[in-house]
């Protein structure tokens, strides 16, 4: 259990795909102008990574290494298309507002990276846990960024106005420059968190 837990949590901060590894960045700025988009994207992504890791881990012994990249692509693309179609069918508004970014999950480096580095070598269950950790690590960052951006840029959360009437939305936050700036601050926050955790670990070690 402990081992599983470790696989799971590393995706949240220490090896957070967005903030530490700096891959799969595009969607993090693009879809985070509103919280609902952030959640939608996060879940879509989590779905794809979980199933892709699972399937590939399951078949890992059958995949010839020379053709592994195309095969990974096929698997990921299939799940991405499924998400895309389902969203179009059941969440048309969300699907519309995220536009091309759902299909682009297919080239999200996080998925390829984890599939290659983890799923193709480990057991299916571990792969799923790893995928969940990565997916949630990705999702919390999206939601965090989106919360700040929607709150300040639109005065609302999930589309519901929550700032007082007198608050004038600061459009900067919903526009591209604001997205980049907030993202910059999140990375720096995460670095700080990580440093803090490392420092705590040292203190703990010394105490022990």
């Amino acid at each position, binding site marked *: 259990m402990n081992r599983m837990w470790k696989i799971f949590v590393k995706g949240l901060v220490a090896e957070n795909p967005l903030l530490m590894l700096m891959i799969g960045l595009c969607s993090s700025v693009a879809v985070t102008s509103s919280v609902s988009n952030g959640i939608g994207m996060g879940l879509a992504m989590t779905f794809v990574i979980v199933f892709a890791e699972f399937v590939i881990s399951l078949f890992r012994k059958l995949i010839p290494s020379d*053709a592994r990249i195309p095969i990974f692509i*096929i*698997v990921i693309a299939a799940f991405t298309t499924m998400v895309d179609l389902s969203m179009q069918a059941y969440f048309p508004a969300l699907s519309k507002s995220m536009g091309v970014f759902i299909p682009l999950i297919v080239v999200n480096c996080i998925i390829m990276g984890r599939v290659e580095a983890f799923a193709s070598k480990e057991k299916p269950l571990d792969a799923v846990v790893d995928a969940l950790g990565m997916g949630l690590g990705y999702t919390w960052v999206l939601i965090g960024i989106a919360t700040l951006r929607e709150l300040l840029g639109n005065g609302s959360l999930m589309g519901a106005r929550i700032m007082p009437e007198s608050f004038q939305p600061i459009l900067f936050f919903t526009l591209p420059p604001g997205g980049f700036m907030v993202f910059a601050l999140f990375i720096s926050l995460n670095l700080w968190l990580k440093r803090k955790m490392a420092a705590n670990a040292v203190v703990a070690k010394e105490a022990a």
Partner: protein
Amino acid sequence: MKKDILRLGIALALFAAGACAALAVVYTVTEPTIAGLEREQLKASLQDLFPDADSFDAIEGGLESSVPGVTVTGAWKAGRGDATLGVAIKASASSYGGDAVMLVGVSTDRRIAGARVMTLSDTPGLGANAVNPAYFVDKTAKKTFPGQFAGKLINDAFEVKNDVVAISASTITSKALTSIVKEAGLVGSAWLEGNASGGTR
């Protein structure tokens, strides 16, 4: 080398076949819903413009915008029984942040039956207020920007800031949308004149 080719080819083909089979299944399930959604959305908009109509027939050809900036992309005849109530024109023009698409209803009495903005990618808080149902250009009458066109005569002047209330600080958006409405009105009424002169009214 031959063996390699075959091996890779088959492996890839197998995976692709598997993946696509799964996909095809999902597709067959979702496809009707997606297609249905689009149709329903259009229908709802049309119905919204002509609440009394019971049939909408697509009109093929013969509808051309005469001003360069505006393009007509579709038209539907709204009918109730045999009677023609009016036409709905889908038209687009370039606005601040890209193309804007509107659906404009023209009734047989040469009035704008109503106007709806289908697509608009202008700035939130500015141009995008055109699609904000809570943004009123006339606060007392609670009229939205597209809402103000309902009932307007085609031959009226459509001068932004004089006859048409502009969205504040968004003259460009206002002008673009207004030009669509005006042109759609002209095109629609011309068609009505040619094809439905014997309307019920």
